């Protein structure tokens, strides 16, 4: 049985119901580690990187940068040790796909890492997993042990010239440690604060060494691309966004959960067909398409294919594919309060705009929700959000600004109602 047959459109998760898939024997029995063997023994590192690049695999951590291209930024030669980092800090609210990939398919991830190690010349991978993912960490630890004992990790992997170590590092629970340089700082035992760029991680990464950071899902796609080729990969998804991804659907839906679907699947199809739509006969009000930092879309705009090239036209992005559905009873000001509180709480505090702006936006939103807002506040909110956009060391401040902009773009009426009535017109569903 092949790990992923060409016709399969859920190749990442197709065996996840099968406990054996998480064990090395079960994984190998389903064709596991054959892609790594093929890459290491029959392909040159550049060839691997180019194949993944040409397949068009976009990073699945949120930014969507072409993974194979990122690999080629690593310096050639061996004057310094080179590292990979697997970003398993999955901290975007609404996103829970990496967790299942680690819990149910740890060897698929390790195989992807091995192939990337071959392509980039990295001698070691730091697998940085968020502290709350205790079970996933346990599964990975076991899988790493199995891989070492079977010669898939360590020196002379599968008898080839490649040696590779994987070190599991558990984070301590900060959103910003999912930002790649914040992660590197935390990995080094420092406070999780993103680094100014340049230098970029490919020049100066973990412990000062050339480093490539990729997301769990990104690595997990790689064995399938090696096995089935770039044409196969490109036959799934859209022209610009090939492959599948795992959408995590949460909120007001009948069947919340994870859905592996080709990129470009329409948002309304995911919400209404796969996730069963809104319960209790209510109507949908808005949907956040890609994790909390992505701008919300109103009910009328859900006919959008879930891929960046289409979502951008609607001023949003795919992010991590975490879809959060809100029904008609939802107060969008309250949503703004919750989101802005999160970003205020999680801002590392280095950059002026982010440190002060996240707090300011949160205070204004709270005041509007309390019924003490003014029309001017709405303009100030947008203005502050604008000051945060693209102005700081990392993209956190964008992530804090976009949701506020999205809410005001599509649900300004909710805000104006609060200002007009000097109270929240929605039934209070939870305390702020």
């Amino acid at each position, binding site marked *: 049985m092949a790990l992923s047959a060409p016709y399969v459109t859920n190749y990442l998760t197709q065996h996840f119901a099968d406990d054996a898939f998480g064990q090395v024997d079960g994984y190998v029995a389903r064709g596991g580690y054959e892609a790594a063997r093929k890459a290491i023994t029959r392909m040159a590192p550049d060839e691997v990187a180019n194949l993944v690049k040409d397949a068009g695999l976009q990073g699945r951590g949120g930014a969507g940068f072409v993974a194979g291209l990122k690999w080629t930024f690593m310096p050639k030669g061996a004057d310094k040790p080179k590292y990979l980092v697997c970003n398993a800090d999955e901290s975007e609210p609404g996103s829970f796909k990496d967790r299942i990939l680690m819990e149910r398919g740890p060897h698929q991830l390790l195989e992807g890492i091995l192939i990337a190690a071959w392509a980039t010349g990295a001698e070691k991978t730091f697998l940085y997993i968020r502290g709350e993912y205790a079970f996933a960490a346990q599964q990975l630890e076991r899988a790493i042990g199995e891989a070492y004992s079977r010669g898939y990790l360590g020196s002379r992997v599968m008898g080839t010239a490649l040696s590779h170590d994987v070190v599991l590092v558990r984070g301590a629970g900060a959103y910003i440690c999912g930002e790649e340089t914040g992660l590197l700082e935390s990995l080094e035992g420092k406070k999780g604060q993103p680094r100014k760029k*340049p230098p970029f991680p490919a020049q100066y990464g973990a412990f000062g060494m050339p480093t490539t950071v990729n997301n769990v899902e990104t690595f997990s796609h790689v064995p399938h691309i090696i096995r089935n080729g770039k044409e196969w990969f490109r036959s799934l998804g859209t022209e610009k966004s090939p492959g599948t991804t795992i959408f995590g659907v949460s909120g007001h839906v009948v069947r919340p959960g994870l859905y592996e679907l080709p990129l470009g699947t329409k948002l309304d199809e995911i919400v209404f067909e796969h996730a069963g739509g809104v319960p209790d006969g209510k109507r949908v009000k808005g949907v956040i398409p890609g994790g909390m930092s992505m701008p919300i879309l109103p009910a009328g705009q859900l006919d959008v294919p879930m891929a960046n090239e289409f979502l951008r036209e609607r001023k949003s992005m795919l992010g991590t594919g975490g879809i959060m559905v809100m029904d008609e009873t939802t107060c969008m000001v309250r949503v703004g309060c919750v989101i802005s509180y999160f970003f205020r709480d*999680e801002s590392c*505090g280095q*950059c002026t705009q982010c440190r002060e702006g996240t707090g*300011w936006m949160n205070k204004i939103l709270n005041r509007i929700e309390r019924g003490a807002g003014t029309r001017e506040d709405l303009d*100030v909110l947008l203005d502050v959000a604008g000051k945060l956009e693209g*102005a700081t*060391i990392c993209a956190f401040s964008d992530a804090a600004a976009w949701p506020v902009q999205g809410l005001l773009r599509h649900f300004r009426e909710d805000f104006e109602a609060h200002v007009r009535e000097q109270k929240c017109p929605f039934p209070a569903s939870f305390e702020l």
Partner: protein
Amino acid sequence: MANVTIDGVAYEVQDGRTILQALDDLGLLMNGVDVPHYCWHPKLSIDGSCRLCQVEVKGQPKLQIACNTVVANGMEITTANERVQKAREGVMELLLVNHPLDCPICDQAGECKLQDYAYEYGLTHARTKEPRRPLAKRAELGPTILLDQERCILCRRCVRFTREISKTSELCVASRGDRSTIETFPGAPLDNDYSMNVADICPVGALTTKDFRFKIRVWFLDEKPGVCTGCANGCNIHLGVANNQVYRYVPRRNDAVNDTWMCDEGRMSHKRIGAADRVREPMLRSAGGGLASAKLDAAIAAAAAKLRAATSGGAGVVAALGSAHATNEDLFVLRRFCEALGTETLGVAVPSGRADELLIKAEKAANAAGARALGFKDAQVVADRLRAGAVRALIVLGDDALAVLGGEAALAKLECVILLATHHSPLERAAHVVFPARVAAEKLGTLTNHAGRVQRVRPAVEPAFEAYAEGEILARLGQALGLPGFAPGQRYDARDVSKLLGEAVPAFAGCDVDAVGDEGRPLAGAGAR
């Protein structure tokens, strides 16, 4: 080298420098080209967090931070246009979201970068209606520094200073987001030899020194360039003067000497200027054995008479001990004086203490190297002559030489001990005549630091009592004695002496008070350390 244009003007700048560094190298930063900044400091690592120094770089869609953008050949940089102004306004508005509006009671007011840039680039009104975050107003970080956490803008200069310069790492940013505060670690206060520098580099009123806090409004201070005299390093400083009183020393940037730093001990040495134990008048040994105050002319006459008597039997019975605190000019006059008297026993006492690898030198006086360059030998030569009984008259400059001379007993039998001192000391018990001397902050002259750099001091304050440069006292004494080279009636002028020194002593060629400027110059033949 890279050719860049900044606001349309072409410059050649060093490769690998960032835009702010290049502007600093050119001497243009905030001095022709205004790129406001908080976290960037020329002597600290680049932080890139305050985001105020954004400039436009042609071809880049976003504004770039000048502190971390490396210059490239052909780069076109615009530091002032509407877009840049808007960005600065935005940063300034956000910095003020939580900053208290307590300028009227803030010690930094008047030299506050937040104030300055808010006037320059800020909005005219506050749009925030939210209460500001309440934090500690008087956190004691250590024995020298207080922190007002509410005023802090988290530029982290102080944190980097303790990590990179003092290498003591006492400070950190605790918590995150808008709850971030500068803190020390439990049980480890900010306590190092350079701790007070953090108050200098703090761009706002968050860090203040206990010493200067609330002493005076800074706009009353006249910041006069000078040199710290605490040790042989000769850190360049500004003396903060008002009401003819020195309120503080702050380091003055000199990349060849002290960068932008000074040690706490040196900084606190300003207290020596107005100290209660200054010698405030000439004194004469009375018949009863005690020292009694005297008019200068009487003291000069008495000293001249004593010296004349002691040397009546012939030359060679006079010894002189110079002070490593005195200026090159004072010591040059002493040397001339001794030459005229025919004495060859010229020593200098140099107090010593702890040294480190940053600034603090073991020689605890500002001009030991100058004394040596002028031919002064170790104080031991004087002590040896005393012990041999070959000395009848001794001229001593300074107040810290008793031990090296062999204690009071060694001086007891001398016919004539003339003391020129800034501060009272046990040496007075052996002195027949005591003259009040000026400290460096009270006179014009030069000091030669450990590396042979000649640096200028100028009168920053006028002593409120009678005191004279040692050179002037010796010149008058020379005139009273009718010594060759000490023309009667000639007014003492330190500037003339300085020129004469440059002509007479080859090492000091080109190093007179005017030629050295405020930055100093190496002695001829001194290494360019």
